[in-house]
């Protein structure tokens, strides 16, 4: 039986890709070449007007991403408006364009949840492999500038075949040497530029290697390494699914396309001001900021309502899931990943399919 979900009156948070411009061209960038890679971006006054509407909707948090947010000279002004409109903010960055005066400005607001810097290696030759020459130096410089200014910093480590063996050194660098409280991990998914760079995606054997390493590190660092996607999440999720299967039970809330809860609490905006359900479902245009009211889009847009109703679609509807022993333990996983692979949002994501993973010689690992 499908669970009963309650929609919030307005989104709790909003993700804004504030620009498509970037100083890097990472091989697994999900933004580049996606529909969110709009080229044109809104000028400052449009964003300031939008932030006032967010305040009227009692939105609590804004996440600023891109592209590279620090490429915009008006970032301090945008942040000031977020603060004046009684919200908090986070910024996702590659670190390379962060200047001390901007970092001090962010710190002085007292409203910055964190700035997340992508770090994929403990040395330039590993980090720069998919991000380009100079990216590591930029990330380290950005981290240092933010820390010196007193901004809370965190990192996202994208696991790929060339940094699996370096994960221990990355943890040492970020957690022990730099002194970060925690960092999160994922792996490249088949979106954006990754669609034309197959070498950035993990094979099942590499996934297994990554799971072993990252599970060991997560145990050693006791909660300071997190994930919501990628090998660490998959290892935990697959183990939970297997335990349930062995016990002959399902997992509550699963057996349907329940793979994403984001659209119940937040939505996203492209650089050109188009509302989309998620930065990774940027082909689903829901309207435009400052022309369509946020609350109307949130509560009434038919495409958004239909997307939220995914959770009522049973996995038994899909031929590939019909005879799967894990059917009632599975969520169908991320709709954006599924869309990128199959062109269909209302279907499971084959890239995270446990049955397929096992058929490709994937294994289970004990989760501490």
């Amino acid at each position, binding site marked *: 039986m499908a669970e009963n979900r309650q929609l919030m*009156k307005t989104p709790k948070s909003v993700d804004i890709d504030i620009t498509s411009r970037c100083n890097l061209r990472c091989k697994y960038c999900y933004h580049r070449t996606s529909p969110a890679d709009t080229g044109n971006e809104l000028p400052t006054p449009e964003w300031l007007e939008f932030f006032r509407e967010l*305040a009227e909707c*009692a939105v609590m948090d804004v996440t600023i991403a891109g592209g590279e947010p620090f490429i915009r000279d008006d970032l301090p002004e945008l942040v000031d408006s977020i603060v004046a409109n009684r919200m*908090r903010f986070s910024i996702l960055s590659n670190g390379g364009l962060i200047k001390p005066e901007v970092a001090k400005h962010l710190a002085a607001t007292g409203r910055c949840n964190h700035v997340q810097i992508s770090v994929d290696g403990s040395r330039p030759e590993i980090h720069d492999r998919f991000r380009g020459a100079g990216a590591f130096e930029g990330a380290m410089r950005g981290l240092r500038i933010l820390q010196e200014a007193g901004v809370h910093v965190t990192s996202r480590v994208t696991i790929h075949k060339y940094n699996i063996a370096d994960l221990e050194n990355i943890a040492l660098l970020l957690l022990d040497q730099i002194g970060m409280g925690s960092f999160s991990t994922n792996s490249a998914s088949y979106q954006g530029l990754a669609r034309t760079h197959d070498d950035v995606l993990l094979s099942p054997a590499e996934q297994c290697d990554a799971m072993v390493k990252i599970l060991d590190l997560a145990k050693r660092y006791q909660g300071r390494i997190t994930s919501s996607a990628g090998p660490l999440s998959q290892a935990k999720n697959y183990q939970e699914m297997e335990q349930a299967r062995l016990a002959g039970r399902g997992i509550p809330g699963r057996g349907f396309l329940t793979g994403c809860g984001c659209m119940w609490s937040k939505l996203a905006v492209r650089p050109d001001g188009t509302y989309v359900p998620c930065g990774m479902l940027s082909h689903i245009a829901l309207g435009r900021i400052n022309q369509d009211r946020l609350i109307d889009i949130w509560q009434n847009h038919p495409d958004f309502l239909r997307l939220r109703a995914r959770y009522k679609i049973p996995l038994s509807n899909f031929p590939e899931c019909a005879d799967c022993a894990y059917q009632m333990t599975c969520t169908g996983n991320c709709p954006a990943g599924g869309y990128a692979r199959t062109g269909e949002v209302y279907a499971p994501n084959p890239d995270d399919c446990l049955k397929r993973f096992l058929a490709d010689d994937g294994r289970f690992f004990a989760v501490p």
Partner: protein
Amino acid sequence: MPTAIVTPRPKPMIVLREEFDDWALLFNPDTGKAVGLPPTAVTIWKCLTTGKDYAAVAAAITAEYEPLPEDLGKDISSFFEDLVRLGYAEYPA
């Protein structure tokens, strides 16, 4: 003679996030913390944001809800204290 109940004032940066079930969140963007409010507390908060004093708050609750607790004044006063203790409101200087 009973002590008069002092009415606190909401801090200006505090955000009330209302939901469909008439509950709400009080969010303090300076700390990132939030607390859940039941419908009665939402009514009280709205009274405070429009500058009403304790007597007007009690009147609003009496008009809108039943049954009422035996000692409504004590409950309202206790909620006032919680708001101040948690940093969502302050007593006038």
